[in-house]
């Protein structure tokens, strides 16, 4: 394998052109801007929000005085759980079909790939509009936890499906051959041998999906609604953390508390990202 040379200054080269230096400087400038912007956002939100992360904010009952986000945290958890309850089995099973059962390059595989790509490209506001028309109105679910969860399940499906397919395809053929050689059937080989090897990749996709669900707003405003309460049944409306932040900034009365909510959201996303990064890294080390 050839080595990528990242800095060729060790190679003697007469009269380096000033344009070269300028290009290099521009690249570094762009990199600094990228990292700087990330730093600015994280530091700004944390500095403004952390001082307001008080016990009041996590009080069991919401009222306009304590602006508690407890209900929103509970709703975010149940929303995430419910959405994944639909999208993970469907996505993983579908990925298994594409990678293990379908003939490679068959028309069905192509169509599923194209539609998964299409789903991934649809903006969240369209999902919100669709969820409202389909689940809230047509299926008469009303603004409810379940309507929101179903909408988000469709939204996270393509990521899980494609990642499952890719993880399964990267499992070496010899594993399957070994299993077949020992007399195992197709299903047993897939579930007991291939799937466990692919699990870290699938898990990474699930973690990223959790981050997306926790941060979603536009798709939820018209499906699960904006009521400040714990949705204790599937049929009740309730706002998640992201929607809570959206409503707080619209009201404009509790900006400090809004910053605190933003901190919690950032922490959730950073945690999910770090976990999925860690798992993906472990995966590449093993391979």
């Amino acid at each position, binding site marked *: 394998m050839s080595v990528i040379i990242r800095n060729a200054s060790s190679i003697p080269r007469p009269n380096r052109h000033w344009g070269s230096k300028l290009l290099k400087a521009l690249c570094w400038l762009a990199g600094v801007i990228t990292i700087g912007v990330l730093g600015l956002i994280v530091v700004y939100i944390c500095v403004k929000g952390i001082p307001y992360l008080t016990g009041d904010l996590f009080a069991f009952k919401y009222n306009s005085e304590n602006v508690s986000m407890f209900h929103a945290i509970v709703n975010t958890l149940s929303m995430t759980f419910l959405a994944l309850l639909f999208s993970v089995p469907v996505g993983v099973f579908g990925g298994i079909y594409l990678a293990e059962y379908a003939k490679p390059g068959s028309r069905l595989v192509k169509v599923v790939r194209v*539609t998964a790509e299409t789903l991934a490209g649809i903006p969240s506001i369209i999902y919100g509009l*669709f969820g409202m028309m389909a689940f809230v109105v047509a299926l008469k679910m009303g603004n409810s936890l379940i309507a929101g969860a179903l909408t988000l399940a469709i939204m996270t499906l393509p990521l899980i499906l494609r990642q499952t397919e890719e993880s399964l395809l990267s499992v070496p053929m010899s594993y399957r051959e070994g299993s077949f050689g020992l007399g195992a059937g197709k299903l047993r080989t897939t579930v007991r041998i291939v799937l466990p090897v692919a699990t870290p990749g699938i898990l990474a996709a699930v973690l990223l999906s959790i981050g997306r669900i926790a941060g979603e707003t*536009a798709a939820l405003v018209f499906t699960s609604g904006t009521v400040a309460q714990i949705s204790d049944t599937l049929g009740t409306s309730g706002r998640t953390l992201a929607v809570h932040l959206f409503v707080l900034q619209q009201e404009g009365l509790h900006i400090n508390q809004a910053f605190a909510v933003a901190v919690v959201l950032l922490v959730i*996303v950073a945690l999910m990202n770090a976990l999925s990064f860690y798992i993906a890294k472990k995966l590449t080390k093993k391979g």
Partner: protein
Amino acid sequence: MRWLFLASACVCILAVAVICAFLFVNGMPFFTKYSVIEFLTGTTWAPLRNVFGILPMIVGSFYVTMGALLIGAPIGILTAILMARFANSTVVKVMKPAVALLAGIPSIVYGFFGLMLLVPLIRVNFGGTGKSVLVASILLSIMILPTIIQTSEAALGAVPNSYYEGSLALGATHESSVFRTILPAARPGIVSGVVLALGRAIGETTAIIMVAGNNARMPVDLLKGVRTLTVNVLMEMGYAADLHAQSLIATGVVLFVIIMAINFLFSFLNRRRVMQ
């Protein structure tokens, strides 16, 4: 089990079909009552008077997206070049998770950041309310950075190293080898990454609604407010009824068609790249 797996795989196809069906079935009745031409080219949006012209929003989406690409694409591509060919592996190890985190930050947090920091900054320095095309473009450019960086870096990494070595052997510097041989070779991949980012930018809603001012009139000035197609739906769907509600679904249909066109362009570019 085989059939269960097959059925699960088909859920994607079903989902796209159902989404299309719901959008078009619910959006079409509007066009039987209101002329498509007037809807697409009308410059006045006055739901109370039953006047629905979405040209300001189409132009608004276009301006904001173009602004985001103008700022975001160069920074993103240069950052990708830095990560692929200039920075040492320690720097890359820091930058990769940073870019992934940038991709993971929810749009509501971006929007809130823009509202609390960028909007006042523009208001103090340039006057006006601060909620403007400019702030929306800057914020969007940050949001599309990770998409551009990740796709460009993958494209740059996929260029055979022999191109670079050949260039060095001919006496070119490291920099000109990277910019004159690797970058052109990676261009198709970078272009499709920019198209992908374009789709993301047009579809963004939550962050824009907080910083763009949302005035439903033709955008004239970088520092004036603007309303995009996405914002139009999110802002008014909550209380709209009858024809007004239908007009918002029709707005969604227009947005959907635009996104589909961009997706099509994206997969077309990708397919051509694979064939090459």
